């Protein structure tokens, strides 16, 4: 069961036109554990604040265990940045926003756009 959340539908074309990457994120969880719920909440907040154009997919491995192999998931929760490449993985409940931003290369990206 894929749980898709997309945002900034109208902005997509113009953002693309400026050469900005489309953000494609996946969050792997295993059931509704406190850690998973915390990770999802934290992630949503970060996305709202820092990303304009992104897709977020939440995958529950309890329901789709066969998907764990594809993205080499060991730890739960794991956030996978599918795009832009290279692929990045951030594991944990994403409670440290700074680390998440570093992990997603968002600090770099923001600095570049600001310049």
């Amino acid at each position, binding site marked *: 069961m894929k749980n898709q959340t997309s945002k900034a539908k109208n902005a997509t074309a113009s953002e693309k036109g400026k050469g900005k990457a489309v953000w494609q994120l996946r969050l*792997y969880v*295993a059931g509704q554990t406190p*850690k998973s719920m*915390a*990770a999802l909440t*934290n992630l949503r907040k970060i996305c709202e604040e820092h990303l304009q154009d992104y897709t977020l997919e939440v995958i529950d*491995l*309890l329901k789709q*265990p*066969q998907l*764990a*192999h594809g993205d*080499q*998931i*060991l*730890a*739960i*929760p*794991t956030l996978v940045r599918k795009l832009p490449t*290279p*692929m*990045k*993985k*951030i*594991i*944990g*409940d*994403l*409670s*440290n926003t700074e*680390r*998440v931003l*570093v*992990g997603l290369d968002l600090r770099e990206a923001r600095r570049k756009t600001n310049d």
Partner: protein
Amino acid sequence: METNDIMAKQKNLDQLQKTPTGIRGLDEIANGGLPKGRTALVCGNAGCGKTILAMEFIARGALDFGEPGVFIAFEETPEELEKNFLSLGFDLKKLVARKMIAVDYVYIERSEIEETGSYDLDGLFIRLEHAIDSVGAKRVVLDTLEVLFAGLSDAAILRAELRRLFRWLKQKGVTAIVTGERGQGMLTRYGLEEYVADCVILLDLRVQEQIATRRLRVVKYRGSKHGADEYPFLIDEHGLSILPLSSLSLNHQASSKRISAGNARLDRMLDGKGYFRGSTVLVSGTAGAGKSSLAAAFVLSACQRGERALYFAFEESPAQIMRNMNSIGLDLEPMVRKGLLKFQAARPSLHGLEMHLVTMHKAVDEFQPAVVVLDPISNLVAVATVTEGKSMLTRLIDFLKCDGITALFTDLIHGGAPLETTNEEISSLIDTWISLRDMEVNGERNRGLQIIKSRGMAHSNQIREFLLTRKGIDLLDVYLGPAGVLTGSARVAQEAEEKAETLVQQQQRVRKQHEWRRKRLSLERQMAELRAQSEMEAEEERQIGAQDEALAKTFARNRNALANLRGTDQFVSRNGKGRK
């Protein structure tokens, strides 16, 4: 009685159930296999065979015991894993397609991972469970779990999760092998042994004098007896072969059957019948004394009886042996073609002594020979210390005896060394010991053969001259004279001398016979003369007698006539006797 029965039953229930690994030798050492439903740790340095052991455990489980398995690879790619399986003769793809094995490849790269906040390893659990459920696995391998420590930085979480993992595996009821790299002063680098309480197997690869030997030791096996020694093992195209020493005992059968030594004359020296079947023969001698030739003759005679013979050559290549033996009339090639004779040639330095032992063990198991030759053991054990060499040969002899195989070892003795010693100090293990010696007399070298000992038979105490001819080996009596043992041309010269002497004697005898005959003839002639003479004399005597009678008659007639004339009668009474 009843309580005993109950106790026995209770004991059976209490006894740990085992999962056989199917790996040659390991089940014997581990007294049946790994603990069923538990996790075993296999640890060792890089490249010592952990993965191979684990793979064989899974593959044999699937193929030989009908137990599907899961292989979780942390270090290898699917292609590598497939190749590795194939190197052991297992087609991983096919096994996966037939749902006998499930494979999951776990890739973890620290540089790609950012950690923030708490997490757990549910992902791994889910993948494992998914794999287990997909084939109904009874066996699980995690190779190598420690990669997790390299990939994830939060050791506290990791340890808690590993503890949970092992508990979970136990609950699942799968028999698992977890591999771990050897650490400094610890069995594994990250102390995995803390979590695995049931069974720990340590693999080791030791290099001694540039020769590597693999060894296996069961460090810990809770609730089960197990072999505690270090066992050498071998990895080849059929997987692992571990050589158990538990068969080291002195209760092998002793056959009273005899087997030819390859030469009728030598058989006669050995109480007329040759070696005992299943005995161990040592042929020792200096270089060029004919050890290999004697071995080849023995092998050939075995093959001619239709028995299988296995020839371990440590000095010459099979082709060279066959060529050389051909020159003395021992044609081994047809026997090789018939599959009765098998050569296994290897440089002694190819691998360690233990490995040689395992290799030979395996070759014997596969070929099932009646006769085995090791040519020469001196070269073989030269790669190790005397103690190791002796221990290895003891085990080899023991193994061959248990299988009732007659073994012949050749042993090179270096010049100057006393003949009644062996470099390997194994003479006490030998049943029949034949010593080939060079005898240097009058500027030539000849071969001598003697039996130093032969258990259980009245063997000859004579030294024989050992000849290598175009028609095979031959044994001759040596000439024993006042100057000692004579061999070679000295023997020939002595024999010629004896022959000349006999000739002279013969001629003398003939001459004497002639003389006697002449003498006899002359005597006979004389006898004939005398006989003729006596006959003549007898004739004369008779003639004279007749004359006398005639004379007397005439005389009487004349007298009668005279008397008649005179008319006297005085003579009538005297002569009238016949007339009346």
